[in-house]
Every structure is written in C-alpha cells, then in structure tokens.
C-alpha cells in the first residue's frame, strides 16, 4: 500500500502530510511531482495545503489543470480515495470533483486558529473509524476558506449526506460564532456522492501529534489506511 502526496509548486503542507503518514502511522507515502502524468502504483492521493501556483488567478485554479491532476481526476472517478486539505480542497472544487467554492473569509483576514468540527458522515474512507457526532479539534489556516454553494446545491449536499464536517462550538452546536470564516451551513468539509473524494479546510496534518495540542487529525489518516488495507485483504 502506498499513498501519494502531490507536490505543486507552492504546496507548503506537503511535508506535514507526508510526516503525518510516515511518522504518525508508519505507512508508506511518497511525493508525486505536479508534472507527472501518472499516479500508477498509488492507492490513495493527498492534495496538501499551500499556495499552489501562488494561488494566482483563484485559489487552486491553475493546479486543477496541472498534468498530475488529470490522472487524479480519472482515478477519483474510478473510486480511488482522494483527500484535499485546505488548498487541496480548493483544488478539488476547481476540478469539479467537489461542488461549490471557497471564497474570502467573512472578516477578509487570514485566520489561523483552532476550531471544533462535528463529524456528520462516517461512511467515507477517511472517517469510518469515528462515530457520527464525534467532535474533532484541528487548526484552520486560510484566507479563503468560506464554503459557498447555491441553495439547490446546498440542499443536495445536505440530503445526500455529503456534508462530512461542520464547524461547531464545544457543545457540538453549529452556531454563527463557531463558524470562523462565514461558510454556508457551517460547512468545513464535503465529499462527492460516492464518498471517496473528501475536501476539508481545517488541517488534520497539523493535529496528529500530542505535541501539537490535538491528535484528532490522525484519526482521518488512520481510517484511510484501514480502508486501503481492508480493500487489499
């Protein structure tokens, strides 16, 4: 089993993602350069955070057209687990693998702070080890992380169980105060209808080690590894 961590020019959480997998879980993970045209040999793909291609034009807009993404899109459509974190989520929206868009934070300022998330769908490869309703603590760090979609899309996402994580307060309530960036319906992470593509603005790659104040993020990578192992078995 081998997990790909894609490196775009401007990725800056690539090392953190790789370490979460290799140091945090002891699984095999390797970088894949954005100019590669194949991801053969890999069983899952992580799109890390950062500022791919400088986030010029729009966050994630150029990365969506990079050579490697064409094969990632194909793999995702045939069921391979693909996990976009922060800028990776933005890229997934730009490719159309996920619906909606990430726009400027409500405050118009970059925000780096811990948030609480509630898990609302544990039927994805990334969340199967946790109970629905479980609270996760992770940091966010983004300037353009407000999830936006039109009413109809939101309705479909909600009904289809595609809202995987929501910003909540310590009591698990999705209040306006608990919503750090003005995301619609407090959405922090969504998946595609099949559940194999997940986008998440907060950073599990920065919350997998007791030294960082939270190990909650490790649970997502663990779930992914379990999924891959069970498929292989």
């Amino acid at each position, binding site marked *: 089993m081998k997990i790909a961590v894609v490196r775009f020019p401007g990725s800056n959480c690539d090392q953190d993602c790789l370490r979460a997998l290799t140091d945090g879980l002891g699984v095999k993970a390797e970088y894949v350069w954005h100019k590669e045209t194949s991801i053969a040999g890999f069983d899952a793909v992580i799109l890390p955070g950062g*500022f791919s291609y*400088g986030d010029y034009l729009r966050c994630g807009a150029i990365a969506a057209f990079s050579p490697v993404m064409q094969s990632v899109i194909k793999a995702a459509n045939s069921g391979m687990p693909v996990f976009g974190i922060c800028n990776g989520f933005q890229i997934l929206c730009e490719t159309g693998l996920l619906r909606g868009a990430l726009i400027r934070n409500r405050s118009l300022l*970059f925000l*780096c702070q811990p948030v609480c998330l509630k898990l609302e769908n544990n039927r994805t490869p990334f969340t199967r080890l946790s109970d629905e309703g479980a609270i996760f603590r992770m940091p966010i760090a983004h300037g353009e992380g407000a999830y936006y979609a039109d009413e109809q899309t939101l309705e479909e996402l909600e009904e289809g169980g595609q809202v995987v994580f929501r910003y909540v307060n310590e009591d698990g309530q999705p209040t306006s105060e608990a919503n750090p960036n003005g995301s619609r319906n407090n959405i922090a992470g969504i998946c595609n209808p099949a559940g194999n593509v997940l986008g998440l603005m907060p950073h599990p790659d920065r919350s997998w080690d007791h*030294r*960082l104040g939270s190990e909650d993020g490790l649970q997502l990578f663990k779930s992914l590894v379990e999924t891959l192992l069970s498929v292989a078995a």
Partner: protein
Amino acid sequence: MTPIITPELVRQHGLSEEEFERIKALLGREPNFTELGVFSVMWSEHCSYKNTRRELRKFPTTGSRVLVKAGEENAGVIDIGDGWAVAFKMESHNHPSAVEPFQGAATGVGGIIRDIFTMGARPVFLMNSLRFGPIHGDNDAARKNRKLVRGVVAGIAHYGNCIGVPTIGGEISFDDSYNGNPLVNVLCLGVLKKAEIARGAASGVGNAVFYVGSETGRDGLAGAAFASRDLTEESKADRPAVQVGDPFRGKLLLEACLELLQSGAVAGIQDMGAAGLTCSTCETASRGGTGVQIDLALVPKRETGMSPYEILLSESQERMLIIVRSGEEERVKEVFEKWDLPYAKVGIVTEDGFMRVLNDGSAEVEIPAKQLADDAPVYEREVAIPAAPETIAVSDLAFHDPKDSLIKLLAHPTVASKNWVFRQYDHTVRAGAVVPPGSDAAVFYVREADKFLAATTDCNHLYCRLDPREGAKIAVAEAARNLTCSGAIPLAVTDNLNFGNPYRPENFWQLREAVEGLAEACRRFETPVTGGNVSLYNESPQGTIDPTPTVGMIGLIEDERWTTRQYFQIQGDVIFLIGGVGDEIGGSLYLKTIYGKKAGLPPRLNFDRELAVQKFLRGLIRKGVVKSAHDCSEGGLAVALAECCMSGAEKIGAQIRLSGMSGSSSLANQRLDVSLFNESQSRIVVSVPSQESELVHQDAAQAGIELIRLGSVGGSELTIESSDGTLSWPLDQLHEAWYSSIALALSQQDL
C-alpha cells in the same frame, strides 16, 4: 547618456568628499557613473556599517556552540547537538515599511528567509518585533498608525503564510516616538546538518557564476542608500526604492536552492538582498579571495532598456547568486528547470580580485572587490551625553485607584492581547508550534532534528530612552528570562539596533551605551551575538525614535517535559513570586499610562541576582514541579498575574495576599500601586502543586533566592488582598479590556 560626475552628484549619492577622494585613490582614477552608484550602496551605512563597525566589535561573538560567527556569512550558525545546527538572524525593514507598509514588511520577511537558506538551512520559523505609534484615538496620527499596523501585519502574513514558514511569535509595542517611523524587525531561524553549512564565497577560479531566480527589474533601486537616510515628508517619493515581493517565487527559489545545495554542485551561494547584484558579486569575491566577472547582457531582465547602473543597483526580490563547481553546471539546469525558475550563467570566478562588470563587451565596472566590500571608511562618531531624565518621587504622584490602573494597563496595546495580529499569521504550518504565540517565549518542535527550541524577541524602549545601557542589559536579561520561563537554556543572540541619525552626537551616545550594555549582558549570560542588523536614521519630522536595541534570543529545551507555559493550569496550585516584590517605578509603563510620564531612572539589573533567579527556576522546572512560569515585565506584578489568569485557552482566577507575606521586609512602607506595578527586574511568578511548595521553599532557601508565597490558583476573579483592603476583578472584565483592545482599534474603518 551617462551623467558627468560632479560634486553635486557625489553628494546625491550620499558620499562625502573625503569618501570620494578615497574612491579615486583606490581606483587610481575617477569612477564612472555606474561605479559611483556601486560605491554609494556598498559604502552606505546599511551595507558597510561604517558608523557602527567599531561599536559592533565590542560584542562577544565566540562560544563553544558557535559554528559561524557574526559577520562571517549571511547569518550566524550555532550547534544544537546530535549533528544539527541552526542558522538565525534578525533584520529590519523599517524605512520601506514606513512608506509602503505591506510590501515593506513582506520583503523584509522574504529577505531574512533568503539569508537563512543561503546558509544551507531549511527555514523553520519566523518571529518579529514591531513598533508603532499609538493606535487609539480619532486623530490623524492614530489613523495613520492603524493603517501602518494593518499593512505591516498583512505584509508579514502575506509572505510568511504563502512561503510556508510559520510566524510563531514576537512582540509589539506602541509609543509616540514611533509616529511616522515604525520598526519592523523580522527574525528567521533555519535548521541544517552541522556538516552541511553553505558558504557565500566565490571559490575556485574558473567556476561558473550563476544568476538564479526572478528577473531583474527597476524596483527597489538603491534601497540600501534609501535606508541610510532620515525619513522626511518627501520620503514617499522614494516609494520606487521599496521592493515588491513575490512569496510564490520565494518558495520556489527556496526549494530549488536547497535541492541544488544537496546535490553538492554549489561552491558558494549568496542572496541578492540590499544592493542586489552589486553586493553579491563583490562580497562573494571578497570572501573567496578571488574576483568575479559578470556580463550584464546575460542577466535575466524583466524590463528593456535598463542601464548598467539600474541593473547593478536594483533590489528586485527572489534572486540568488550561485557559484557552481566546474563540471556541475548541468545540475543547475536540471533543478531550476524542474522548478520553472529563470537561471543564467552570467560570469566566472577570476583570480585577479576584481569585480568586473561587462557591458557591450567592455568593462563598465572594474573595482577591487575586497576593497569595495570590506574597506569602506570606518568612523568614530562624536558622542554627547543628553540631559539626565526627569527624576520621579512617588510622593509627588497623586494616588490612582489600582483597580482602574490595572484595567488601563491591560488595555494598553503594548500589554494587550495580540490575538488580532497573531491570528493572521500561519503559526501551525510545519506542525511544530508547541507553544503558540502569546506566551513568554514561543516553543517550536523541529521535527527534522528532534529538538525543542524556544525563541523570544525583547526590548523595552522606555528603559532604553532613559538609560540606554541599562535598558540594553535588561533586553538581554528579559530575553533570557523568557526562555528560562519556557523551560529552555539560552544559547545565542541576534540583535537589531534601531537608532536615529548617527551624526547627532546624542543619538550616537545612545547607540554606544546600548551596544556596551548588550555586550556586557551577552557575556554574563554566555549568549554570544551571532549576527544581526543595524538600522539608523530612524527619524521622522516628529523626532527621533526611542533607542530600540531589539534582542532575539534562541534557547534549547533539552527535555520535552520541561516545556513550560505562562498561564495558570490547575485550581489549587500555589502561586509563588520568585525575586521579591520590588519598588522601582522609573521608566515603568504605569508611569507612562497613568501619569503620562516617560521619566525616572529605569530599573537596575543585578546580573548575579538575575542569573541566580533563572538558575533556580530552571532547577525547579527540571524537577517537574512548575506548572506555569511568567516573568514580571511591563505593568509589573499585577499585569503578570492577570496574564497568568487569562492567556491560556481557559481563564482561571487567583487569590493573592500581599499582606503579612514572609520575606517582604520593604513592603510595609510601600504604596500599594508601587508594589503592584513596579518593574523591578529578576522576578517571576510561578505556580506549583501545593504538595510541592515545601520543596520550593527549601530550594529557594538553599539557593539564597527571595521567595514569596502569594496565594493560590482558582475562582473566577483575580483578588489581591493587602493592608489597604481587598481589590477584586472579575476575570471577564480583565479579559475584555485585555483581549479586545487592539482588535477594536484596528477593526474600525479609517477612510
């Protein structure tokens, strides 16, 4: 058409008649226009330290951990054990930030990051030390200051967040003296293997000289010379002297350079910072004892029609000069094409010792590199001792209700929570910020090396204004104290000397006093100075800034379990004050905030006492009994206690008794406000589990340390009982004053 060299032109280039004569003697002829420009930037204060070099020699620069000394390379390097080392340095971008805060601050970050990876180190964190004029109030100065704060913070965030180097802490103070002249000092630290230190020398005659990174444009023309002048009303016209940063290019350059360094192809590497191509060519040649010849036709350019003068003096960002071992040139091509970055072979290393620049086949510049880089004139400036500051007698000060004073001090932006600022900095990237911004020191886990580092920046400008020597000593002592409070042993220092025009004798006296104070303190704390920066001419039409010799200090936490935070943790823990109640209010924030006075004799530092207090605390931390530790600084004991209650994720109260304390002989005759708000040094508030308090008493007695049991942690109020009665503040009230002060000021619309 190249201008004719006239005395007027020489003067415009900031060179004195005497310096021009020296140039002619050195060349054996008159310089041409381009060469005049080259000398003007290399012999500017910014590049040559011509007015401060003699003073800087007073710093202790050696120590068992020092691998690269101050001044030797782009940044100092120290040993942190197990084959690992760190390169770190602080640098200012004050002038650019005054006229164009966003880009000024952003390129300050970019520049210091390049200095670090030039050493072969991977940058792992950033810190900063900022100074602004007051931000509260409905007046032009406050409005302008608010714009500066927003711009500087956004600029730091823009560059640091994008390049993926976490900004993990620092300090910000506000004072009238910084009106129109903010200070933006940025520190970067990088980690590397001890055996892989890169050098900025053009070694190996015949080796190729490569230019890599962004194309050269007309931005930042002669920024080094701009930074070596006073700021005036006309300084805005110098906006073209401010560079424009591109953190995306910076990130690519960082990765490409580290990759190329790993390949072993690099003989020497130097960033193009101040004075750009000029500085990097002559400095690498000077360090290598060689010459460097480049051809301007080969330099990647962003604009057409640039003159040799413009190409050589441009400070376009994200550029490096790399000397490549012969036979390895293909490597450069591979790596830089991979990262889609411009690169070009622009010249070769020669043996004749000249910096030679070819233009259209003939030599446009031909200057002995070593003399250009190292033989700038060195001056001894005049000093004059200014009038002694106004003395203060407590009895002359009308008593002000301490209940209100504490609220006012907590709301003073120098003390108030910096959450509005720190939230905009990505401090969690690289997954290493163990103690995030807001504690005494930031603590960062460097995964590559499996080491816990602590870092802090400190300087109290009020003390330095009133007594620069003592203020500088205290800056070092406080930095070391902050590291000690976080569980670290202090290792080394980088400094940023921010002063006024050195040609004013009072200013130069301040600088000399401060340097001597820093030097003495660094000797006593065994923290050598490994590098830094001097920023002079920090004057605006409103006057000169308070002298600000900022100290950045790095420490090592040898065991993860010793990591200590400033805030109270557990109900029922006993609170101790190490070092006594104190009585010095001169230079205090209390005097300034409540009485509007920047006056009096600032606190005295007793080295022996300070060292003993820190040693004692480190001993306690190592025994595992300390739950929190926070030093008393601005605002004294009362502010320290309030911060201990509020700066954690959960607020937690404290019950303090100042009456009937053992070991506080002087307290009986002292006014309560003096006890609460004095800023006597070498004092630390700690909390320990009650069952350990006997051990703390014993250890203190044995070490001869003054120790006072203040009370205990718990409740939802901060309560201070004294012979004058009981003061009590609900935590919510303290928190509101402290937490929202800066955010409220800065979130208002300033049209």
